């Protein structure tokens, strides 16, 4: 029993690391993966009986490597190929295992792989999630995820996607693609983590774990730290976003004692450091906005002036109507709702439910109930998330009866 518990833990913490080193040794994604699966299968049987070996990760690595060598030998003999020459040498000293992990992340998130495949492959290989788990988390059929992973691996092999950390001149651009994948994983978990689907919430945890890994591997880069801060500050408020009945609770109404203080402190420390190090980037400013929110003990104490200024900076880095909408709301909280309404009326965001929902909210606060009801109805036509729908319906009832 003890052995089984350990194995699950080892799988979680070591799978990606062992796989990364194996791929470097055998230079074949699928072969490395199959061999490691085999090694885990052997471990299940052997460890149950004899107990785990003193160094389980090393045991798994050796077993998987031997399986891979057998496979290569068989293949070489079958194809009578002499260009694949295998020589077994002495054990390497302290192989740079961490740089292998970094290679694996950059390869899985290569821009030549379709984004949805990058995500599936990263979760499968770097995080060691099963195909079924990924499918459940993304609410897509298992064969779809399996196909994405197969396609990604075929592309790595056939298109010659390198298994290495990009050169300095490429690093920033390629890092962006890695960070995008991590943030997409997080948002997939965060935006849908209402209700009973715990696996989706787990995606947030995986994204944070990936970001932590990236921060440890590239300590001098600021963007991974900025993204980690942004995710921590969001995740800290996750449990307060729903009430006992699973209903959505907006930031202003959240029970702030339910926020995760450790995550907030860690996130804010990261933001402080990142902001001091250089010109603001999109992730850093978004994290800074959350840091201001989380600094307020009550929603009334929120420094909306600073938040609207930060949204102004964000709009310059990354001009988008969604950011303009957020800025308008912050301006409304700082300078008055009328002002915010005039700003919102200039924004074009067709089919985005938060635009009419925000208008509705401002109109409700101004006591213009009839107009508010109309805007809530427009928002209801566009919303897709059930918890958000119920929230809007509650508000609509309020303004009709009030």
């Amino acid at each position: 029993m003890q052995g089984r518990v350990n194995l699950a833990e080892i799988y979680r913490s070591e799978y990606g690391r062992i796989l990364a080193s194996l791929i470097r040794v055998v230079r074949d994604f699928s072969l490395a993966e199959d061999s490691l699966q085999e090694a885990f299968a052997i471990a299940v049987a052997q460890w149950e009986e004899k107990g785990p070996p003193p160094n389980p990760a090393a045991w798994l690595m050796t077993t998987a490597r031997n399986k891979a060598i057998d496979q290569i030998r068989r293949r070489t003999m079958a194809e009578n190929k002499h260009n694949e020459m295998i020589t077994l040498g002495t054990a390497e000293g302290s192989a740079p295992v961490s740089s292998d992990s970094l290679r694996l992340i950059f390869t899985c998130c290569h821009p030549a792989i379709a984004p949805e495949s990058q995500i599936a492959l990263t979760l499968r290989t770097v995080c060691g999630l099963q195909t079924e788990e990924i499918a459940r988390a993304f609410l897509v059929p298992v064969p779809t995820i399996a196909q994405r992973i197969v396609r990604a691996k075929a592309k790595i092999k056939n298109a010659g996607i390198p298994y290495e950390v990009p050169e300095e001149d490429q690093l920033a651009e390629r890092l962006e693609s890695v960070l995008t994948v991590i943030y997409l994983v997080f948002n997939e978990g965060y935006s849908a983590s209402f209700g009973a689907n715990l696996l989706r919430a787990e995606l947030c945890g995986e994204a944070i774990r990936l970001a932590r890994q990236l921060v440890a591997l590239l300590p001098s880069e600021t963007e991974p730290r900025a993204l980690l801060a942004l995710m921590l500050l969001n995740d800290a408020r996750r449990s307060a976003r729903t009430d006992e009945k699973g209903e959505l609770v907006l930031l202003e109404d959240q029970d702030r004692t339910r926020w995760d203080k450790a995550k907030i402190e860690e996130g804010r420390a990261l933001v402080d450091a990142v902001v001091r190090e250089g010109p603001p980037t999109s992730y850093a400013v978004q994290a800074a906005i959350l840091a201001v929110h989380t600094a307020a003990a009550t929603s009334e104490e929120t420094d909306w002036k600073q938040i609207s200024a930060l949204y102004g900076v964000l709009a310059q880095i990354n001009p988008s109507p969604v950011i303009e909408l957020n800025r308008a709301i912050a301006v409304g909280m700082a300078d008055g709702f009328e002002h915010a309404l005039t700003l919102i009326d200039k924004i074009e965001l067709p089919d985005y439910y938060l635009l009419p929902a925000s208008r509705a909210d401002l109109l409700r606060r101004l006591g213009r109930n009839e107009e508010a009801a109309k805007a809530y109805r427009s928002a209801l036509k566009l919303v897709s998330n059930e918890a958000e729908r119920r929230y809007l319906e509650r508000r609509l009832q309020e303004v009709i009866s009030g």
Partner: protein
Amino acid sequence: MSIGAALVRLEVEFQKFMQYALLIYQSETWESLPKEEKNRIHEDCGAWHEELVRAGHARTCFGLRPATMATTVRTNSGRALVTDGPFAETKEVLGGLEVVECKDLDQAIAIAKRFPALRVGFAMEVRPTLSGECKEE
């Protein structure tokens, strides 16, 4: 606990280089560019190619005459059908190709990024080539 300590070095001799076809897709606006501008692009592309030759990447290359010069052959209920024009009428027309040998996709992408005609809206498709006998697996 070090995984590295358990690592036994395994050296596998690999195919050292990959071959890529860099497919040159013309922009819609190409034909309407002034002659001088077009010639400047031709010259720059020539220099780009020469650089690839010097670096040992270039294998073969050619430009294609306009798609209006193309003739397409296919079969229609068993009979060969010969028609005027390209196979697919698209806005982006294949204008030529350059075959290069690179160590990996990143190197091929770096070469493609330097292709001078990108600045007038061209696109470059990087396609690994098949080598040897073609056989489905």
